């Protein structure tokens, strides 16, 4: 009986391992192809260990398009967006949980409703509004139009609700201002929720495509997803350009893989609390 269980345990492990490896197969295949020669890919696409390493694919890709600029654009806009979203959302979530004011319930209802709606509905008017502000084709415009994130408000509000009232009252009676209470007591007490919001916000913003692709035109001003797609389109689906496209894609994807591998533990935890992307 014990033996049967052991065999079953191993079989399960191997099946899941195979499925897991299939899930990351596209990433592996991308990495492998990015250092192969065009001929090798065409003749032996299944070969997982390249016969010769062609790192010049990367130098060629970097020469053909400003990948580093794009990564930088994505990185700083994402950091600013996530930071600002957390900042604003913390304030609102604090008000929603700790203040009494007229329209509080209405406000929360609106936030809940917005939470489920497709952001695409807002694109055309947002585009016009940014146009009025002369912020089309500008990374500042991208940042500004992403400052609100209903998901983060919702997540933080749910988390802030669990802070015991007594702690806040004690702080008030100690003479702390609401601002101090929020940043020095409530936010540190909810660092898990804040971490969740940070990671999810980072992933969704860094990987975002549709809205930045509508907003940004100049090659120099692209974020990485948009730049990568236009790079892939301009190189064309020709066999000979294939390695350079894979090299470009690798440049775009690897930063996230690295972040994921380092922060894996937190990602798996935090995604559970995520639901709809902002």
């Amino acid at each position, binding site marked *: 009986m014990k033996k049967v269980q052991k065999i079953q345990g191993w079989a399960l492990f191997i099946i899941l391992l195979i*499925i897991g490896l299939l899930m990351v197969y596209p990433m592996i295949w991308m990495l492998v192809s990015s250092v192969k020669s065009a001929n090798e890919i065409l003749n032996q696409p299944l070969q997982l260990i390249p016969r010769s390493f062609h790192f010049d694919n990367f130098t060629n890709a970097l020469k053909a398009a400003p990948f580093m600029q794009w990564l930088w654009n994505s990185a700083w806009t994402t950091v600013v967006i996530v930071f600002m979203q957390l900042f604003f959302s913390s304030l609102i979530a604090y008000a929603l949980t700790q203040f009494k*004011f007229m329209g509080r319930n209405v406000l929360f209802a609106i*936030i809940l409703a917005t939470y*489920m*709606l*497709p952001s695409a509905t807002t694109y055309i008017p947002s585009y016009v509004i940014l146009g009025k502000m002369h912020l089309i084709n500008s990374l500042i415009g991208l940042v500004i139009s992403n400052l609100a994130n209903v998901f983060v408000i919702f997540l933080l509000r749910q988390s802030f609700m669990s802070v015991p009232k007594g702690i806040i009252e004690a702080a008030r009676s100690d003479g702390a201002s609401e601002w101090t209470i929020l940043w020095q007591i409530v936010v540190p007490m909810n660092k898990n929720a804040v971490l969740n919001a940070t990671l999810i916000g980072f992933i969704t913003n860094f990987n975002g495509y549709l809205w930045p692709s509508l907003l940004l035109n100049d090659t120099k001003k692209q974020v990485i997803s948009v730049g*990568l797609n236009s790079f892939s389109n301009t190189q064309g689906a020709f066999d000979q350009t294939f390695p350079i496209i894979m090299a470009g894609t690798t440049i775009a994807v690897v930063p996230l*893989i690295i972040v994921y591998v380092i922060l894996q533990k937190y990602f798996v935890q935090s995604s559970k609390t995520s639901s709809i992307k902002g």
Partner: protein
Amino acid sequence: MEMKASKRQLLLFVVIPLIPLVVFWIIPLIVSLWLSFTDWNYISPTFDYVGIKNYTQLFASQDFQQAFAHTAYFTFFSVVPIIVFGFLLAVGLNKLKRSYKFIQALLFAPWVTPLIGMSIVWGWIFNSKVGPINQILHILHLPEPQWLTNPTAAMWTIIIVTIWKNAGWAALFFSDALAKIPSSLFEVSDMEGLSWWQKIWYVLIPLVSPTTLFLVIVMILECLQAYDQITVLTQGGPAGSTTTLLYLYYQLGFKQFQMGSATALSIVILVISAILAYISIRMSRKHTYY
């Protein structure tokens, strides 16, 4: 006791932080609704009110009907496998005695990597001439579909990529829900003599049903808003066979600049989302017994 907020505090904590939400969410939603009753074309400074003409035209147009059908097809055949695979993977994961974390990390990786980049990779993997999938099918002497140029196959390419991206993510939720089931419930079922499939059918599935419902609605909304994989792999083609409602919205609004029709379509997508969200909330009320 909650504190009554002063004017200054309200300004700092509510009014200012709400500005971006109002400017880029609330106002655009209202403006969208308003634009959907006009014939604005983005370029000309003037426009006329056309009543519900945008909507009637939209509903009558073949493009819309097709896109609606494609969206329904795409959504159904993505969401069902995502849920089923996600559940099965979670059941497996929770039984796993070793390397749980490692395998979970593998399964979850597709959700983290950028879909644009990975769709480019998938495009080559599905390449009918040199892609590894058809190479393998070739070795196995199986039919080699023209993945990206045959209308049905193209839709399935999109579906497969969508499942790939989300199944591990769904598994994470399911495995969390499964882990929260008290082990004594399984012990009771042992004592009552349930076979393994009876346990799954009578105990596991009903107990994770709130999670299932949640994932179904989130995945439907995700599919309604799917864009990256379509724009990279098929651009809505061939012959419009992978044009979903959202993709049609993009084409109407940002390629053809028919802002009236596009906003009308976006309102339709919004209404569909709202209806689904409402149904899900109603259903989850009925299904939460604990």
